[in-house]
């Protein structure tokens, strides 16, 4: 089906079902219950899940397959965001041209940076990409944010190409030659798909549950599914095999008549375009682009997502993006009052002790939990959460298989971060 084998198609199908039903799945708790704060089924967060999913899927095509660790991928995210903003400002509020331009621009940018950075490998490559991203950040933050209109002019470029620290925003003066400059109510228009506004949503109350279906989320989800499908195709293609060969042994590759350079560059550009797509989608959901999106910590975040979920696996990056964004938005909201409620059933002394023990890891301390999880994964589970899941699955299967005796056919060596 769709050029996928049965296993991959099943995986894709599961992901399709999960993303389509996400407003239900992520909202398991009734509104009035104490657990409602763990509901993640609101549009803003769900959009972030899939957008960062796309970012991580793209990063995984580079790092997971070729082993080149880029520490500057957020630069492409930023380029995508700014490009989409400018389409909104100049052309109109339809999201499709905006996304097309962000992918294109980040692709061009990735060719430039990739061509130079890929002349080195290993740590040098990581530092080069980091240096380029920090340069882009500095440019967006200050250099490209200077008044380019000339003195006294109040034109489009009054705050430069990027708007500096405050970011690039829509204004009523933007030309938007293919769209409307202002809405009837005198506001700036909002991003839409042929008139269907991204921020519009429908709500459905079932008993005590409230489910929100947002246009923006479903739009992002469909794009994510396409991106995911393409990444499966890449993983299973001869091209994907060559990329794994790059990671495994470049020397053998060139003595087999293959030139590793264009393969790696292609992977770099593809992953840069994925990042640009994610950046464009961010702007399509919330039309504002700031330089902090290019800061190196943002690049570090996508590294964390990919590794946590499982670098080189198909579903891992999406999983990692989900876990991190969930923690960032949900775990970070827990405060000590809530903790006290949870442990209220315990005797007072133990309750306080438990709260004190758990407190550093929640709320503002969620980064600590993340850091520890990340370290544990790097140390014990190089294949990320996906490998963890596989190990558990194998454990259960082994228990079930035991009566039939050890059948080596069913226990192949753990796949090297390629399957699933």
């Amino acid at each position, binding site marked *: 089906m769709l050029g996928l084998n049965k296993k991959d198609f099943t995986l894709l199908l599961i992901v399709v079902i999960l993303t389509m039903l996400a407003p239900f799945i992520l909202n398991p708790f009734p509104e009035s219950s104490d657990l409602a704060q763990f509901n993640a089924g609101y549009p803003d967060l769900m959009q972030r899940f899939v957008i960062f999913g796309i970012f991580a899927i793209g990063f995984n095509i580079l790092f997971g397959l070729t082993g080149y660790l880029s520490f500057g991928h957020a630069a492409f995210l930023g380029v995508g965001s700014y490009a989409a903003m400018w389409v909104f400002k100049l052309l109109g509020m339809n999201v499709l041209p905006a996304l097309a331009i962000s992918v294109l621009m980040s692709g061009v940018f990735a060719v430039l940076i990739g061509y130079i950075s890929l002349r080195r490998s290993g740590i040098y490559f990581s530092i080069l990409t980091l240096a380029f991203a920090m340069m882009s950040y500095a440019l967006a933050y200050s250099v490209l944010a200077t008044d380019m209109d000339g003195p006294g002019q109040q034109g489009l470029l009054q705050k430069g190409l990027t708007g500096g620290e405050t970011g690039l925003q829509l204004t009523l003066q933007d030309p938007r030659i293919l769209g409307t400059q202002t809405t009837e109510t005198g506001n700036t228009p909002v991003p839409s798909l042929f008139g269907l506004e991204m921020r519009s949503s429908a709500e459905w109350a079932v008993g005590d549950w409230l489910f929100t279906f947002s246009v923006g989320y479903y739009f992002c989800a469909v794009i994510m599914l396409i991106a995911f499908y393409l990444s499966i195709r890449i993983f299973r*293609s*001869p091209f*994907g095999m060559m990329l*794994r060969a790059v990671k495994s*042994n470049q020397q053998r590759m060139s003595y087999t*008549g293959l030139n590793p350079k264009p393969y790696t560059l292609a992977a770099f550009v593809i992953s840069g375009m994925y990042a640009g797509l994610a950046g464009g989608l961010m702007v399509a959901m919330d039309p504002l682009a700031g330089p902090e999106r290019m800061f190196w910590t943002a690049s570090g975040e996508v590294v964390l997502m990919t590794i946590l979920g499982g670098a080189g696996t198909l579903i891992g990056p999406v999983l990692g993006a989900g876990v991190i964004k969930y923690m960032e938005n949900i775990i970070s909201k827990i405060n000590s009052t809530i903790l006290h409620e949870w442990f209220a059933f315990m005797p007072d002394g133990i309750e306080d002790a438990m709260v004190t023990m758990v407190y550093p890891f929640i709320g503002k301390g969620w980064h600590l939990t993340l850091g520890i999880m990340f370290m544990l994964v790097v140390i014990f589970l190089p294949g990320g959460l996906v490998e963890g899941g596989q190990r558990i699955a194998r454990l259960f299967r082994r228990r079930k298989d035991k009566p039939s005796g050890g059948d080596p056919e069913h226990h192949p060596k753990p796949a090297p971060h390629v399957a699933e």
Partner: protein
Amino acid sequence: MGILEVKGVNKRFGGLQALGDVNLSVQENTVHAIIGPNGAGKSTLLNCLVGKLIPDTGSVMFDGNSVLGRTPHEINQMGISRVFQTPEIFGDLTVMENVMIPCFARRDGAYRMHAFETVANEATIVAEAEQILEDVNMQDKRDMHAASLSRGDKRRLEMAMCLVQQPKLLLLDEPTAGMARADTNNTIDLLKEINETRDITMCIIEHDMHVVFSLAERITVLAQGTPLVEDTPDNIKGHPKVQEAYLGQAH
């Protein structure tokens, strides 16, 4: 005119003359051995042939074309394959994938963006790869990780990867180094068979005289970066200069 013509090649590393005026002619469809004591420049010479090193002076012609200044993958595409002293394979990939990669390289050249095809659908490549695995008797290991193979199997896999490219010239860098006697003999048989059935010229660097004399039709003796003699195995055996080179100058 041989298939490989090396003329007047010099290579210096700082003050060390690694190769001094090397001339070598390898005839088509022969097995040509290069022997010599440690540090004689055998590996340097090999690296000059495959594009890893560029000689300071001289020319290296393969099949009528110069290889100098070309990158390793270009030289490989001209028809020169290389087997390394320690097998160089794609350890993270399966045995089957290891032999499929050179199949793709032969069909598609140094680079092709085949991102939307599927490996499993490439029927001819799969068939070709399976055939070569059968030829080297490894079909039962097709889904194993190459890194988990035994050393002997790694060597056979590397050989299979070279053969599937149907090279005109196969360069072998001590193919039996560190092998047990039985394995060495198997390798000799394998190489003999390849030479007889596939019309592949071979240039082999070897320390083990047993291997050299069972395979080679011509032998070049290198010493201190310069060829001492080139002759048939029978003539080499009793050659005084060769003995001198191996045993050192008499004091």
